[in-house]
C-alpha cells in the first residue's frame, strides 16, 4: 500500500471520526472542537485533490471564522463552569435507522453511477486560474457574493441591535 493511500485513509478516518464526534457527542464543547478536526480533515482532502486554494480558504474561513463564531456562540449561551454542558439529542435510534438507509442508498448510487471522466487529471496550482475566473467568467457571482456578505453584515446588525426607542 502506498504511503499516499495510507495517509488518505488516515485523513479520511480523522475527518469522518471527528464528524461523528460532532454528531454524537453529548457535550457541545466537544462537538464544537471536533468540528475543528473535520474542517481540518476536509482541508487535507482538498489538498489531496489538488485544490490548494480551496484548502487554504477552508482553513481560513472555516477554522478561522466559522468555528470561532460557533465557539463564541456556545460560550455566550452556556455557562462554562457547568461540567456537563448539555447537548441534548433525542430520537437517535429512528434517526440512525433513517440515516443508515439513506447513507446506504447514497453509497450504492455513488458506486453505480458512471461519473463523467475528465480528459486529464491536473495537479497544478489553481490559485491563479481561480483568480482569473473570478474576474472573468465568474465576475457576476463574485460581485454578487459581496452583496450577500453585505446583506449578512447588515442582517447580523439588524438582528442583534437593540430596538428603537419609541
Amino acid at each position, binding site marked *: 500500500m502506498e504511503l499516499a493511500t495510507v495517509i488518505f485513509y488516515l485523513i479520511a478516518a480523522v475527518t469522518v471520526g471527528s464528524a461523528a464526534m460532532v454528531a454524537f457527542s453529548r457535550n457541545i464543547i466537544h462537538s464544537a472542537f471536533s468540528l475543528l478536526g473535520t474542517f481540518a480533515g476536509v482541508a487535507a482532502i482538498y489538498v489531496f485533490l489538488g485544490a490548494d486554494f480551496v484548502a487554504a480558504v477552508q482553513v481560513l474561513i472555516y477554522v478561522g471564522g466559522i468555528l470561532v463564531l460557533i465557539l463564541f456562540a456556545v460560550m455566550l449561551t452556556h455557562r462554562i463552569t457547568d461540567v456537563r454542558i448539555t447537548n441534548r439529542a433525542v430520537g437517535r435510534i429512528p434517526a440512525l435507522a433513517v440515516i443508515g438507509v439513506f447513507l446506504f*442508498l*447514497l453509497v450504492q*448510487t*455513488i458506486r*453505480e*453511477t*458512471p*461519473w*463523467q471522466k*475528465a480528459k486529464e487529471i491536473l495537479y497544478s496550482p489553481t490559485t491563479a486560474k481561480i483568480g482569473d475566473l473570478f474576474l*472573468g*467568467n*465568474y*465576475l*457576476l*457571482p463574485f460581485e*454578487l*457574493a459581496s*452583496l*450577500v456578505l*453585505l*446583506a*449578512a453584515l*447588515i*442582517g447580523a*446588525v*439588524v*438582528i442583534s*441591535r*437593540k*430596538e*428603537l426607542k*419609541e
Partner: protein
Amino acid sequence: MDLRNFESLKFFYPEAILTGTILLLVLLDLVLRRKEILGYIAGAGCLLSLYAAVELFGARGGWLFQHMIILDNFSLFFKVLFLLAALLVICMSLDCHELRRVHKGEYYTVLLTSTLGMFFMASSSNLLMAYLSLELVSLTSYILTGSLPHNRRSTEAALKYLIYGGVSSGTMIYGMSWVFGMTGSLDYARIGAALLQGEVNHLSLFMAFVFILAGFGYKIVFAPFHMWSPDVYQGAPTPITAFLSVASNAAGLAIMIRFFFPALSRLGENGSWLFLQGVEWPHFLLFLSMVTMTVGNLCALNQQNVKRMLAYSGIAHAGYLLMGLVVLNNDGLRAVLFYVVVYLIMNLGAFLVVMIVANATGREDLDGYHGLAWRGAAIPAVCMAIFLFSLTGLPPFAGFVGKFFLFAAVIRQGGMFVLLAVVAILNSVISLYYYARVVKTMFFDFPQPGAQEVEMTPSHAALLGFLSCLTIFLGVYWGPLAFYAEWSLRFFVR
C-alpha cells in the same frame, strides 16, 4: 447573443438600479434623520427599476455575463412581478404598526436585496448563480423574518426558517454536486446537452433531482418541504409574510422552471416539453401536487389565526401551481405564470387586510374579525371577501381565471391528469370552507359589544381599492395578461 461582462451592463439596468438604491439606502440611513423617507426612496428605486425592466421588453434575449444569467421574456416577466411585489410590500410597510420599532434603513435595504436576489433566481443559467441567488434570498428572508426586535414570534420564526433553509440549501447543493459530477459543467445549457447525449444513470439523476427539489421546494413551499411556512409566516411581520408568500414563492417557481424546463428537457411538438428519459418527473410532481394542495387545505381548515391560515392556503396554492408544471407543456407554464400574477394580487391584498386589522386591533386571530364589516371597516371586509373568494377560484374574480387555466392545462392532457383535476376540485371545495369561515366571521357574526372600530389610512384604502379592482378586472378581462404570460414563455435557451 452571448455577452461578455462589460457588454452585458446595458442589459443590466434593472439590477443595477436596484443595487444602486440598496447602496444609497445604506448611505442615507447614516445621514437622514427622518427614516420614513427611506421607504419612499426604496419605492422610487423599485419604480425606476421597473421602468428599466419594461424598457427591456422586446430586447433580443441572450446570455449575459458569460453565461451566468439569461435575459429573456421569462426573466423579465418575473422581474416585473418581483418589483411589483416589492413595491406593494413597501407601500404596506410604510404604515405598519408592527414595524414601528424596526430600523427602517436596514429593513428596506434588506428587502431590496432580497428582491435583487429573486431577479437572479429568475434569470440564472448556472448552478452556481442559482445557489448564490437562492442563498441571497434565503439570508435576506431570515433577516426580514427576524427583524422585529425582541419579539418572541419573530425571532423564533427566524430561527426555524434559518435551520430549515440551511438544511434545504445544503441538500440542494449536494444534489447539484451530483449533477455537476455527471455532466462536468455548471451551465444549464451544457448540463442539458450532456444529459441528453450522455449515458445517464437514472437513479443518481433522480436522486440529484430530489435533492435539488428540496431546495426549490422549500422556496415554493410544497409538500413535504412546506412545514416551516406556517410558523414563519405567522411569526414574520405581516408585510414580510406577504412578500415571502408571494415573491419568494414565485422566485422558487421561476428557478425551478428555469432549471428543469429549458435546461433539462427539450421542446417537443405542439409546445410540449419532453423530459429526460428515466426520470418520472410528471408522476412525481403529480403526486406532490396532490399531496401539497390536500395537506395545505386540510391544515388550513381549523386554523384560528388568519395569517397562519393564509400560510396554509399558500401551501395549497403551491399545490395548484404545481399542477401547471406537471403537464410539462406551454399550456401549463402559461397557466402557472398567469396564476402567479393573480396570486400576487389577491394574496397581497389579503395580507394587507390582515395588516390593517392588526394595525387597528393588534389581533390576527379569527376572533379579532368578528363582525368586521359592521365595525366601520366595511371596505376592508368587502375587499377581504373579494380576495378570499378569488383565492377560492370563484368568478368573476381573477383567481377563477387562474384556476381555469390550470384546470384547462390538466384536462387537456387527459388520462391520469384528470385525477389530479378531480383532486384539485375537491380541494377547491374544501378551501371554500375555510375562506368562507373568515367571510362568515366578518359578515355574519355581529360585533361583540365593545369591539374596537377598525380604521385605516387613506393610502391603505387606495391600495386595497386598487388590488380589489384589479382582482375583479382581471377576472372579467384577462386577455392581455394571458397574452403577456404566453409571450413570457419564449425562453432564450433552447
